[in-house]
């Protein structure tokens, strides 16, 4: 798009109208930004992670206090009240929430950041003088209009998308992919509309505080596209969606940081934005799917129709808890592969007890985690940590996959697609190319599954069920593990 001549004038005004920044204030925000970097840096190992979290808290404290002491505050009691109310709600939720509900909680928190960004942008639009973004002609500066509109739009998408993700993860809405007819055209049209109207808003001659109604139109469209984008995405693709929304919440914060010329916000926005983007990338890679195919949605809905007719009744071996207990005790090495089913059945505590009983028998017990197991990145690791499984017993896919050949038992609980050999052999399979665990190399495979009916998220049959060395344990995951524990300690 060609820049109109008046834009260049306004760009230079941006520099003139910028705050006469007190260097100490700028320094304080910079320190806050650096502390946030250290907070993420701490997460490189569980040993340093808690110190990192403290750095994060300190950074936030510095940012808030700096803002409060450097502005003439006309409404301090209200502000303190608002922080107290919000803080109390947040604190209580954080204390009470069940670890299995963590994906929902994170989605809900993302929606709050998104909405907060929308509100801040709207406030800046209505009262630009407070943000020092008013030009000499009484209009909001052109750059600031662009930053505001982008921040508001990204915030709105984050909000509505996260609300849908929350409803799906929390079970208030079907986790299945909901497909609207013509959805790709509707989405592209809405997105195009947002871009064109943002450009019009930015370059419009009407630019005074709260004057241009285009602001609200773009905001409404952005809310709409957030809903439209997430509705067609199915439950097991949620790790990508949650990471993506995480990234958006960062970009929204960064856009507002540009408006406010605030380094703490810009650094944080960039950190969070790249963090979410990297997590989305890791999740997509772990499913061997492109980011676009996940966002286009509808996975699983189409796949079940192709896999359906080929499925026939094949013989499988069913075992009992007693059989499983006996074989587990005889084993020298057991590798446990948990999946989303373990989280649903809340089986992590029973599972850890089983691990303890086996260790007492001198069996080596390890846990193998697939990057996309569960509903968000690292979901399984948190649940196992909650159940007191030491983190040095828990291994990533690439670190443990070569060990299955030496393992006596591969114990699969609530996972399915991540152990499906079709990903390695069947080019027509929707999960072809996804890295999977080589459980077929283990001497015995135990597969806890509710029934032989369901075939995982991707809707593909799993050859592991029918292998000679596989023992199917058909029951609720938690009940089955508890029975195995009983049989072992008897």
């Amino acid at each position, binding site marked *: 798009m060609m820049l109109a001549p008046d834009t260049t004038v306004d*760009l230079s005004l*941006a*520099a003139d109208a910028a705050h006469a920044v007190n260097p100490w204030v700028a320094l304080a925000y910079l320190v806050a*930004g650096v502390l946030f970097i250290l907070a*993420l*840096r701490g*997460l490189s190992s*569980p040993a340093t992670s808690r110190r990192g*979290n403290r750095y*994060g808290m300190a*950074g936030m404290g510095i940012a*808030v206090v700096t*803002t409060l002491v450097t*502005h003439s505050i006309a*409404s301090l009691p*209200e*502000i303190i009240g*608002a*922080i107290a*109310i919000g*803080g109390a*709600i*947040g604190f209580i939720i954080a204390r009470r929430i069940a670890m299995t509900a963590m994906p929902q909680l*994170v989605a809900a*928190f993302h929606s709050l*950041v998104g*909405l*907060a960004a929308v509100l801040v942008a709207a*406030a*800046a639009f*209505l009262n630009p*003088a*407070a*943000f020092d973004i008013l030009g000499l002609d009484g209009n909001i500066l052109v750059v600031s209009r662009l930053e505001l509109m982008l921040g508001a739009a990204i915030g709105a998408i984050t909000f509505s998308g996260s609300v849908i993700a929350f409803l799906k993860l929390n079970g208030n809405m079907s986790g299945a992919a909901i497909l609207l007819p013509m959805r790709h055209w509707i989405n592209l049209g809405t997105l195009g509309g947002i871009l064109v109207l943002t450009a019009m808003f930015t370059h419009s001659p009407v630019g005074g505080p709260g004057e241009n109604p285009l602001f609200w139109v773009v905001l409404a469209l952005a809310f709409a596209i957030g809903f439209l984008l997430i509705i067609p995405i199915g439950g097991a693709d949620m790790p990508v969606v949650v990471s993506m929304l*995480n990234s958006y919440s*960062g970009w*929204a*914060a960064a856009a507002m*940081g540009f*408006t406010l010329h605030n*380094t703490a*916000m810009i*650094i944080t*926005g*960039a*950190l*969070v934005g790249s*963090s*979410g983007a990297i*997590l989305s990338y890791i999740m997509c890679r772990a499913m061997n799917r492109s980011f676009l195919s996940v966002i286009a949605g509808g996975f699983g809905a189409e796949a079940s129709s192709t896999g359906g007719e080929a499925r026939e009744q094949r013989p499988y071996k069913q075992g009992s808890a007693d059989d499983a207990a006996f074989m587990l005790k005889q084993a020298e090495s057991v590798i446990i592969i948990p999946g989303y089913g373990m989280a649903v059945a809340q089986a992590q505590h029973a599972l850890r007890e089983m691990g303890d009983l086996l260790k007492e028998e001198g069996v080596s017990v390890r846990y193998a985690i697939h990057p996309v197991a569960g509903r968000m*990145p*690292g979901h399984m*690791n*948190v649940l196992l*940590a*909650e159940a*007191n499984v*030491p983190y040095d*017993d828990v291994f*990533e896919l690439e670190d443990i996959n070569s060990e299955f050949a030496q393992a006596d038992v591969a114990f699969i609980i609530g996972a399915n697609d991540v152990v499906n050999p079709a990903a390695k052999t069947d080019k027509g399979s929707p999960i072809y190319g996804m890295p999977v665990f080589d459980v077929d190399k283990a001497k015995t495979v135990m597969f806890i599954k509710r029934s032989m009916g369901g075939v995982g998220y991707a809707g593909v049959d799993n050859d592991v069920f029918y292998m000679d060395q596989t023992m199917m344990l058909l029951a609720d995951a938690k009940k089955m593990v508890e029975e195995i524990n009983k049989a072992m300690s008897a």
Partner: protein
Amino acid sequence: MDFISILSIFVMACFVGYYVVWSVTPALHTPLMAVTNAISSVIIVGALVASAEAGSPAAKWLGLAAVVLASVNIFGGFAVTERMLAMYKKKERPAAKEPRT
């Protein structure tokens, strides 16, 4: 600060983010999301600015609402991260055997 200086800070921070996040161990990806969530609520700075100035009552109330939302996130995000991180434990070497019945 002019636009280009701000943009430079932003681009540099993206690179820092890229390297820092790749060094995060996959076991801590859930706490990573929780803590990034908490720190992205630094947007509270904007909310405070909006609610501090008396210029427009509408803007002030929008700002205060944003302060509430961001505070939920800040306190909730850091507290839940702290709770999760406290659960990650190393193996205690000489495993104290508890008598089981």
